[in-house]
């Protein structure tokens, strides 16, 4: 059979509407997974043993089981305990929970690079523990963690494709529909492959731009409200 892209290109609008859902889901999951990740990372090095163990268990559990199994558990399992599920929100939830486990490890290793002396200096300047966290520890930790986090975000975007298995009409979901409609799977999936590449290159570019804007010029010493500490 000959390679013919015209049936696919004729349905490009439909494919791109799937892309917009992929982008939306990705953005939501990136923000959520980042927030949960910072929370879990903080818990992972908490002074309370129980909190530490719970956070470590969370990370271990989500990193060592397949995403597909987690997704099926949430999507088919939650209705069993009376929580109705809907593909897109369940998908965002599952993605965020998984990605948060990876993000937590990245943020934690960032926090561990912050020298003890810097934290003590912050305390002796009269900052509260929370202020030290917000103005001293996190900016330094995030600077170290930002590039690995960027890789994790790219990975997250790619993982959104798995949501098509619970009937989310994202880029991959719509590609499946076009494939069965036109019977041109090779052409469809090749185009989709290129679109995903374009999306992930964009994500990488944004990650690098943010690094250059906010982190590269950040002083080696932490800056508190415009004044060098």
């Amino acid at each position, binding site marked *: 059979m000959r*390679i013919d892209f015209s049936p696919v290109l004729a349905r490009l609008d439909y494919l791109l509407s799937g892309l917009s859902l992929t982008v939306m889901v990705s953005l939501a999951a990136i923000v959520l997974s980042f927030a949960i990740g910072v929370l879990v990372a903080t818990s992972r090095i908490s002074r309370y043993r129980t909190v530490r163990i719970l956070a470590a268990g969370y990370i271990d559990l989500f990193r*060592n089981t*397949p*995403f597909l199994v987690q997704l*099926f*558990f949430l999507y088919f399992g939650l209705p069993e305990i009376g929580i109705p599920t809907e593909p897109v929100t369940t998908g965002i939830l599952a993605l965020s929970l998984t990605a948060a486990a990876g993000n937590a490890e990245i943020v934690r290793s960032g926090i561990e690079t912050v020298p003890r002396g810097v934290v003590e200096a912050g305390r002796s300047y009269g900052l509260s523990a929370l202020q030290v966290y917000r103005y001293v520890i996190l900016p330094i930790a995030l600077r170290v963690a930002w590039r690995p986090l960027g890789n994790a975000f*790219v990975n997250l975007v790619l993982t959104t494709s798995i949501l098509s298995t619970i009937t989310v009409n994202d880029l991959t979901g719509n590609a499946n529909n076009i494939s069965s409609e036109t019977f041109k799977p090779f052409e469809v999936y090749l185009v989709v492959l290129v679109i995903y590449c374009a999306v992930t290159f964009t994500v990488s570019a944004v990650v690098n731009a943010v690094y250059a804007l906010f982190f590269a010029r950040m002083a080696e010493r932490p800056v508190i409200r415009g004044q060098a500490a």
Partner: protein
Amino acid sequence: MYEMYQNVDFTLADLDLLWRGLQWTLLVWSASMVLGIGLGFVLGLVAHARVPVLSQLVTVFVETFRNSPLLVQLFLVFYGLPLVTPFSPGPAEAAIFTVAINTAAFTVVNLVAALDALPRGQWQAAGAFGLSYGQTMRYIVLPQAIRTALPPTMNLAVSQLQTTSLVSIIGVADLTRVGTMLYTRTLKPFLIWPAIGLIYFILAKILSVLAVRVERRLQTKNSWFQAAA
């Protein structure tokens, strides 16, 4: 009336089903790891040698497969290839082939990074001793680079175990597929998905213990190497 036709209880045959699913998962994983890491090794050498055209092709291959979802790659191979090429792989062949290619792309990055990390002085010194490119590679560069590249590649292999769950979507009867079969028959997602997840969890733990052991052995060899050098 409807319940009559449903076989909602678990039987001993289900254990057999799980066992066979486990075997498929391990087969797909081990075959694709051996093929993928082997192919990645060869392609990594090509990429590092800067062969005109060939090295650029490897880079394009690596970036495409690292920046697109494995699920789309699976669909491209399983549904797409038979329509445009004489090859029509079955589910298992398509699965092993695709996971191998995906793994190869990531292995190339690990190997090239390890090769680039070696100081240029070693090449110059080897050249001064009259060693050819091949000899330098074989006796000087590769023994060190492989030691650097192995830990990230083993981590990759351990995490690819989770990824193999995606092959269930193209019909390989692996653990996840068995989970789907049991779920659709018994409709007990709250029991089945954690059980399947637990098996993956145990497998991943065994594999990471093995990886740590290999790493430790290499480290002792490495220290011997450094002491001798």
